[in-house]
């Protein structure tokens, strides 16, 4: 029998250890966070390895650790399709996004889109897209946190949500990006170490040979677990999800913001290399964790605790390492959620304060003190909103919201970012239309899709056939951006392109 759901001394100790260390880091960072540049960009002092770990920390959410391990344990090969989809966006980040962001922007991706366009219209549209992505991602994380903590530690859902909200707010409010970065680094190291140790404990039982593990899974549950099953049956559905996962990675605001924390474009490049290495390694480990749980814990025991399989990795930890190891993995999962919501909240606060307040309301001229204060007010607002959303959505099925967040990021943010950097004729109206079309079409199509109509509302059919809107909304956003730009030529925007190209490659000349 499992001790999951009962108070676990080791888990509580590890969790308090993590919170103490990260609050200590926040205290240290708070003394170094004296300006908006520190608050949003950690004073551009983060190294390539550090930022690589922090990117990995921001990206490896509890959904990918618990969710994918669970999916693999229950459906075998089909779960791996997600592991792979979550990784392949990183090369795109490297080739098209990382260096332009570092060289052209300051705090948010809207800085880059608005570089040679009119500020207010672009910033408003970008903030709408950013806030939509951050909100849906936050809801999924907060609801996941509440459920997870209830299952792991046996405390109330609401209590868990409030704890996550308050601790996360403390990191961001006092320590800004520097504290958030180090929280991500600590969490990424713990998560990678925990997953590696768990995988090694599993492999020790199979003569250190993953193939022996896979063979044992096939012996017990049939060779079908090593082959594609029913998850991907419609090729268009698969393409649509794949496109959203791939290009969404390159449009997630909390990921994009990390490229401002490094000193130059070359370090941005190095950090993506490290991040892709760590994340890919982590997803390869999920192969072992998923099949390990399938064989060692057994599918029935995993389903008995949670129908969706989300407890497969903690159950596996208990089976191979005892209650103490279960406690460690539980604490790591909690720390993971805490770190991801901190990153999301910071990027949401940046959209509100840097894009909307400073650049739209105050037209780009606001005293440093005011900018700093507005950023902190926006952080508190973000923290309160995420606690409220976490409680409002209690008990709702929010799994689709991660896919939706990726779809909006891929449709609203990615096309505008790429067109603004690489396509001279892009205009203010084009950018605005592209970002709004991306956000609106993602939202409209998902509400007409089987994801909402069939799975959530239990209708027999859905007006829009695909589960994820990406296949339509991403090309639509590109097409709208290009068409509107060609219809509304803008001399200043076209004239600014040479300057943009120069700064894109040669870097900022004043060194900021």
């Amino acid at each position, binding site marked *: 029998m499992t001790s999951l759901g009962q108070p676990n001394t080791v888990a509580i100790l590890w969790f308090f250890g993590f919170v103490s260390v990260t609050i200590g880091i926040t205290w240290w960072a708070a003394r170094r966070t004296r300006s908006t540049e520190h608050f949003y960009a950690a004073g551009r002092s983060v190294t390539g390895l550090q930022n690589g770990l922090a990117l990995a920390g921001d990206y490896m959410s509890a959904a990918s650790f618990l969710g994918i391990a669970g999916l693999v344990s229950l459906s075998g090969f089909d779960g791996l399709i997600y592991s*792979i989809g979550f990784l392949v966006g990183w090369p795109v980040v490297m080739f098209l996004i990382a260096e332009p962001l570092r060289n052209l922007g300051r705090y948010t991706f809207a800085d880059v889109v608005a570089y040679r366009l009119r500020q207010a219209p672009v910033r408003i549209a970008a903030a709408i897209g950013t806030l939509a992505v951050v909100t849906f991602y936050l809801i999924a994380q907060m609801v996941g946190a509440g459920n997870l903590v209830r299952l792991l530690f046996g405390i109330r859902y609401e209590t868990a949500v409030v704890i996550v909200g308050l601790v996360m707010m403390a990191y961001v409010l006092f320590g800004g990006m520097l504290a958030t970065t180090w929280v991500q680094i600590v969490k990424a190291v713990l998560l990678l170490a925990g997953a590696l140790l768990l995988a090694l404990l599993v492999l020790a039982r199979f003569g250190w040979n993953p193939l022996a593990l896979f063979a044992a899974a096939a012996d017990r549950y049939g060779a079908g677990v090593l082959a594609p099953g029913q998850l991907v049956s419609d*090729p268009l559905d*698969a393409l649509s999800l794949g496109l959203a996962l791939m290009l969404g990675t390159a449009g997630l605001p909390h990921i994009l913001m990390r490229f401002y924390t490094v000193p130059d474009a070359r370090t941005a490049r190095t950090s*993506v*290399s490290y991040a892709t290495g760590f994340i890919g390694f982590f997803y390869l480990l999920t192969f072992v964790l998923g099949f390990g749980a399938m064989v060692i814990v057994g599918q029935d025991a995993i389903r008995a605790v949670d129908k969706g399989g989300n407890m497969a990795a903690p159950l596996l930890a208990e089976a191979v390492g005892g209650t103490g190891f279960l406690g460690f993995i539980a604490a790591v999962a909690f720390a993971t959620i805490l770190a991801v919501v901190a990153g999301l909240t910071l990027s949401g606060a940046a959209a509100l304060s840097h894009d909307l307040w400073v650049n739209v309301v105050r037209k780009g001229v606001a005293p440093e003190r005011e900018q700093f204060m507005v950023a902190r007010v926006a952080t508190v607002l973000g923290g309160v909103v995420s606690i409220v959303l976490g409680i409002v959505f209690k008990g709702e099925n929010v799994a689709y919201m991660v896919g939706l967040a990726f779809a909006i990021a891929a449709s609203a943010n990615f096309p505008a970012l790429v067109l603004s950097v690489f396509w001279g004729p892009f205009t203010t109206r084009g950018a605005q239309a592209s970002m709004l079309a991306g956000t609106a079409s993602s939202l409209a199509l998902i509400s007409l899709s089987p994801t909402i109509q069939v799975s959530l509302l239990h209708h027999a059919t859905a007006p829009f056939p695909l589960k994820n809107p990406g296949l339509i909304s991403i090309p639509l956003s590109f097409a709208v951006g290009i068409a509107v730009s060609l219809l509304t030529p803008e001399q200043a925007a076209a004239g600014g392109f040479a300057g943009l190209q120069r700064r894109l*490659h040669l870097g900022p000349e004043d060194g900021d």
Partner: protein
Amino acid sequence: MSNEQRALEALARAQWRLALTLTGAMMAVYFGFVLLVAWAKPLLATPVARGLSLGILLGALVIVSAWVLIVVYVRWANGHYDRTVAELRARSAGAQRRR
């Protein structure tokens, strides 16, 4: 158009070409895999070794190919690209001093 401007545009074109080629390669690999999963389920179920289906092998290779493409880009960018950028920056700093 100055020499410097021409050199910068050539560099921008080379960067864009490589970035687009590698992005296309990643898409081809990944969407090729996804379409095989959707259309060629029996093929991917083929055992390659005991405990290893063709599907799992190809899946792991998609992750490895992401690493390989990144290495290709970083080698070019840290070498040729950064050298050219440094030259152009030095030339532009020199031009500013003369002004």
